[in-house]
C-alpha cells in the first residue's frame, strides 16, 4: 500500500484499494451472485456506479446506526432506477463534505432525524438523473428517441422490444451531461418506496458477520486502551510505566496530554497493564466542580436577560394586564449517551498516509480530525466507516478519532483504541444542564394569553454547526419552545450558559425538542390541571388553526387508541403529549402505575405520528418504538452527577437504562400523508419523556419539574 501510494495513485484508487484491504465496505449482493468484480465501472453521479458487468453499486451518504438509513436510501435509489433492491450493491459514502453533504445541515452529517429527509431530496433526483442518462445513452446507441424507451428491472427497453442492460450503456451514459431537472417518479407508480421492505442489514446483524467500528482488525493490529484524567479537563502530570511494561502482552505505554494509552497484544492485556500504571494527574480548574455548582450557574443564567429569538404579539403588555399568571422553572440533568458499542477507533498511520476504521455520524469530520492529528493533508486519510453500534449524537463528535490518531503516532503499525464502558461514560460529550422558566399570562378558561419561555443552555451550534444560529441564538436549544399551539403572544428568550471548560457538551437524541417538549408539555398539563380541565381537551382548544391541524390530528388519534376516558385503578395514570418537530407531528399517551415506594412502571405508550409521506412504514414504527424506550431511560433514570470534577457514574449499574422487564407495550399509529417526509429517529424520545411525566402526575398528583423522576417524590401513603 505504502509503496503504491508513494508513487502517487489517485485518491479514488487509494480508497478502492483501502476498501479491498479493510473489507467490510461492500455490502449487499451483486447481480451475478459473485463477489463484486465490476470490471470497468462508471460513476453516473456521486451515488450511483454501474459496472460493465451490470452490477449497480449505490453509494449511501447517510450512515447506518440502527435507524434503517441504508434500507430506505436503497429504496429511494432503487425505485428511481427501476431496480430490485435485493439485487444492488451498496456502500457507505467516503468522506466528502461537498458531494455527500446533507441539504438540511450543509455538511456530511447523519443526525437530527435527517437521513430520510435529506435523502428524499437528493437521492430521488440522483436516481432519476442516472435513469435518464442510461436511457439517453441507449437511445443514442439505437438512434431512437428517448421517449420511445422505457426502463424496467435494470434494463432499457425500446418500443421495438430491443433491450440493453445498464451495464452495457453505463460507460456512454457517464459521459452525458447530467440532466438539470430530472423527472422523479410519481408516487402512484412506486413499487419499492412506501413498502415495509425488510431491513437490508438484518442478515449480517444476526449471524455475527456485521462489522462495526470495534470489529476492525487490519493485519498486524495491536490493541490499546486509554485512561483520561478522571477530573474533566485535567492533564497528565506523570506516569510510572515500569510495572505495566512487565505485564504479559503489554508492548508500550503512550502518554498523551490528557490521557495515557497502554498498547498490548490484546485488549485485556492492555487493561491489565493500565491497572498497574501509576498515574499522577494535574486536575486543573475543575478539581472541586460539583453538579450543584452547575445547577446554580444555570439558575443564575435564568436571572440574566437573554437574547430574544421569537416574538409573536406583545407578551409584556399581556402579562401586565392579565389578572392571573403562572410560572414554572424546569431543570434538566446532565446526560450520557451510553451507546452499546463503546467508543473506539482503529488507525494505521504511516509517514505518508493514514487509514482509519471507525463508526462515525460525521465521516468528513472524522477524516478532518484524523488529518489534523496526523499532520497529513485530507486526501492522505482514508476512512472506513463501518456500522455504528448506536450513535445518539455521541458519534457526531470526533474526539475519539483524534485521540486514536494521537496514540497511533507513537505506535508502529495499526492500533485499535477501545474505551472501557467506564471511560465511555466518564469522558462523555454530555447533554448539558438545561433550565427553563416559563411564564404564562392566563386568559379565558385558564388558557394561555401569552407564553414567555426563557431557555438556558450551552450554545452547542456555535461549535457544532454555526449556520444553525441566528443573532447569537442556538436555534436548536429554542426549537419547539412554545409547543404546537395557537397562542396569540409568544416570547422566546435564550440565555447562554456554557459548561465549565473541560466538560464537553453536545447533541443527544432528540436535541432541542427532547428538552423543550417535556418543558412545554409539563407546563401545559399543569395549566390544564389548574383550570380544572381535561388535559387533552385543554390542548385541543389551543389547536384550531391550519398550522396546528397536523399535530392536533396526531393527538386525537393517539387519544382514541389509548382509551383516554377509561377509568384506571388508584396510582395509575395517563399522560398526553403533543408536538411538532423534525417536520413530523406527534401525539402520545403514556399509561403508568406508580407503586407505593414511588417506583414508576410504564404500562403502555400509544403514539400517533404524521411523518408526512412514509418511505418504509415498519422502519418508522421501529424508530418510534426505540425512541420511546430511549426517552423512558431518560425520564426514569437518566442523570450524570459530578463531584470533585469527576463523573460519579461509571457503568450500567450506576447509569441504569431501561431493560426488557420495564419495557411497556408500545403502539405506533402512522397517519397517511402526502406531505414531505418528516424525521422519525428522535420524536419518540421527546414525546415519551413528556407523556410519562404527565402520566405520573395523573397517578400521583406530583408535578415533576426536575428530571429524572425521583421515587422519593412519588411515594404513596
Amino acid at each position, binding site marked *: 500500500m505504502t509503496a503504491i501510494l508513494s508513487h502517487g495513485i489517485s485518491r479514488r484508487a487509494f480508497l478502492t484499494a483501502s476498501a479491498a484491504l479493510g473489507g467490510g465496505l461492500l455490502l449487499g449482493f451483486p447481480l451475478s451472485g459473485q463477489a463484486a468484480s465490476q470490471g470497468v465501472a462508471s460513476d453516473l453521479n456521486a451515488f450511483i456506479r454501474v459496472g460493465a458487468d451490470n452490477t449497480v453499486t449505490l453509494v449511501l451518504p447517510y450512515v447506518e446506526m440502527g435507524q434503517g438509513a441504508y434500507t430506505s436510501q436503497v429504496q429511494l435509489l432503487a425505485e428511481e432506477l427501476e431496480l430490485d433492491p435485493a439485487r444492488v450493491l451498496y456502500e457507505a459514502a467516503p468522506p466528502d463534505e461537498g458531494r455527500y453533504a446533507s441539504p438540511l445541515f450543509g455538511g456530511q452529517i447523519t443526525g437530527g432525524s435527517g437521513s430520510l429527509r435529506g435523502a428524499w431530496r437528493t437521492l430521488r433526483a440522483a436516481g432519476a438523473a442516472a435513469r435518464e442518462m442510461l436511457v439517453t445513452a441507449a437511445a443514442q446507441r439505437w438512434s431512437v428517441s428517448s421517449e420511445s424507451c422505457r426502463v424496467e428491472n435494470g434494463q432499457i427497453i425500446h418500443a421495438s422490444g430491443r433491450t440493453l442492460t445498464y451495464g452495457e450503456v453505463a460507460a456512454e451514459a457517464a459521459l452525458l451531461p447530467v440532466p438539470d431537472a430530472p423527472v422523479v417518479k410519481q408516487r402512484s407508480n412506486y413499487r419499492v418506496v412506501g413498502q415495509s421492505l425488510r431491513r437490508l442489514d438484518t442478515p449480517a446483524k444476526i449471524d455475527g458477520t456485521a462489522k462495526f467500528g470495534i470489529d476492525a482488525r487490519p493485519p498486524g493490529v495491536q490493541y490499546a486502551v486509554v485512561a483520561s484524567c478522571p477530573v474533566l479537563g485535567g492533564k497528565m502530570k506523570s506516569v510510572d510505566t515500569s510495572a505495566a511494561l512487565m505485564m504479559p502482552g503489554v508492548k508500550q505505554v503512550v502518554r498523551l496530554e490528557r490521557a495515557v494509552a497502554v498498547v498490548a497484544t490484546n485488549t485485556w492485556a492492555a*487493561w491489565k497493564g*493500565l*491497572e498497574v500504571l501509576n498515574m499522577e494527574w494535574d486536575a486543573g480548574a475543575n478539581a472541586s466542580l460539583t453538579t450543584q455548582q452547575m445547577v446554580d450557574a444555570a439558575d443564575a443564567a435564568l436571572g440574566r436577560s437573554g437574547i430574544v429569538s421569537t416574538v409573536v404579539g406583545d407578551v409584556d403588555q399581556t402579562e401586565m394586564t392579565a389578572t392571573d399568571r403562572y410560572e414554572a422553572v424546569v431543570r434538566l440533568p446532565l446526560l450520557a449517551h451510553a451507546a452499546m458499542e463503546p467508543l473506539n477507533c482503529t488507525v494505521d498511520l504511516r509517514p505518508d498516509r493514514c487509514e482509519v476504521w471507525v463508526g462515525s455520524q460525521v465521516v468528513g469530520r472524522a477524516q478532518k480530525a484524523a488529518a489534523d492529528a496526523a499532520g497529513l493533508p485530507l486526501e492522505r486519510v482514508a476512512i472506513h466507516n463501518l456500522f455504528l453500534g448506536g450513535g445518539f449524537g455521541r458519534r457526531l463528535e470526533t474526539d475519539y478519532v483524534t485521540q486514536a490518531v494521537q496514540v497511533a503516532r507513537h505506535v508502529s503499525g495499526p492500533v485499535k483504541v477501545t474505551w*472501557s*464502558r*467506564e471511560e465511555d461514560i466518564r469522558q462523555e460529550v454530555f447533554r448539558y444542564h438545561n433550565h427553563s422558566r416559563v411564564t404564562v399570562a392566563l386568559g379565558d378558561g385558564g388558557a394561555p394569553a401569552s407564553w414567555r419561555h426563557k431557555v438556558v443552555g450551552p450554545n452547542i451550534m456555535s461549535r457544532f454547526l454555526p449556520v444553525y444560529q441566528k443573532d447569537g441564538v442556538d436555534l436548536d436549544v429554542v426549537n419547539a419552545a412554545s409547543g404546537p399551539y395557537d397562542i396569540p403572544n409568544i416570547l422566546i428568550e435564550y440565555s447562554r450558559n456554557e459548561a465549565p471548560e473541560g466538560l464537553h457538551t453536545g447533541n443527544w437524541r432528540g436535541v432541542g425538542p427532547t428538552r423543550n417538549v417535556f418543558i412545554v408539555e409539563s407546563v401545559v398539563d399543569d395549566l390544564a390541571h389548574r383550570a380544572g380541565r381535561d388535559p387533552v381537551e385543554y390542548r385541543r382548544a389551543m389547536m384550531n388553526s391550519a398550522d396546528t391541524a397536523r399535530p392536533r390530528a396526531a393527538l386525537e388519534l393517539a387519544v382514541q387508541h389509548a382509551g383516554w376516558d377509561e377509568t384506571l385503578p388508584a396510582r395509575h395514570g395517563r399522560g398526553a403529549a403533543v408536538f411538532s418537530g423534525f417536520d413530523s407531528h406527534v401525539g402520545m399517551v403514556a399509561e403508568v402505575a406508580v407503586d407505593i415506594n414511588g417506583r414508576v412502571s410504564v404500562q403502555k405508550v400509544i403514539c400517533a405520528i404524521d411523518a408526512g409521506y412514509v418511505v418504509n412504514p415498519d422502519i418508522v414504527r421501529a424508530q418510534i418504538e426505540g425512541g420511546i424506550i430511549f426517552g423512558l431511560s431518560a425520564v426514569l433514570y437518566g442523570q450524570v452527577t459530578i463531584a470533585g470534577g469527576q463523573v460519579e457514574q*461509571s*457503568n*450500567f*449499574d*450506576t447509569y*441504569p437504562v431501561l*431493560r426488557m*422487564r420495564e419495557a411497556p407495550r408500545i403502539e405506533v399509529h402512522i397517519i397517511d400523508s402526502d406531505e414531505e417526509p418528516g424525521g422519525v429517529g428522535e420524536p419518540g424520545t421527546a414525546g415519551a419523556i413528556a407523556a410519562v411525566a404527565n402520566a405520573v402526575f395523573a397517578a400521583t398528583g406530583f408535578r415533576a419539574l426536575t428530571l429524572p423522576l425521583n421515587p422519593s417524590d412519588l411515594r404513596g401513603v
Partner: protein
Amino acid sequence: MTRDFLHAVASLAVLCTVVPGVIALNVVSSTADQTAATDVQQPAHERSVALFLDAARVIESPRCMNCHPATRSPTQGEAMRLHTPPIDAGSEGHGPLGLNCNTCHGSENVSTIGIDIASIPGHPHWMLAPASMSWQGKTPGEICRQIKDLTRNGGRTLEQIHEHMAKDSLVGWAWNPGDGREPAPGSQEAFGILVGEWIATGAACPEG
C-alpha cells in the same frame, strides 16, 4: 446432637471471649483471658443470646444478607440495593430457566476492569437462599428462630447448622468476597466457634 459434638464445641468455646456488647469476632485469635471466669456466672440463656447477637454481625453483613433477600430477587453491594441486572430466583434458586446464576457467576471470584463492580463474585454452588431462609428486614431474634426452625432451615439439625456455618465453602465466601467488597466480620473459623458456643449454651434467641 452427639456427645462428641458438644465436647468439641465446649473445648472451642474457651477460645472465645464473649461479653455482651463487646466485639468477640475480632479477638477470637487471642487466647482466652480472665473474663472467661466471669462468663460462667452469666445465666446461660443470656450468654447464649449474646453469642447469637455476636454471630448476627456476620449474618447481617451484606455478604450474607444479599443472597437471603426479602423477595425472590437478590440484592447487591454494601447498600444491599436490588441486584443489577435484575434477576429472579427461579424455582430452584439458580435463576430462571435459561439464565442461571453461573451465566455471570463462575466457580470463583473474577476481577473486572469495572470501577464500582471491581469483581464478579463466584463459587461452584452460587445460588439464592430458599424463600424460607429469607433474612432481610428481620430482627436478629426473628432470624435466630428461623435458623432453628426445621421447616425454615432446610431441615437442618443444630449440629448441621453448625457444620454449615463453620465449614460450608459458600458461607466461607463471605470472608473471601473478591475485589471491591468488604468481607464479613472476623473469620469463618471464629464465626463457627461462636455458632457452636451459641448452640452449646442452649441456642437461645434474642427477644423481638
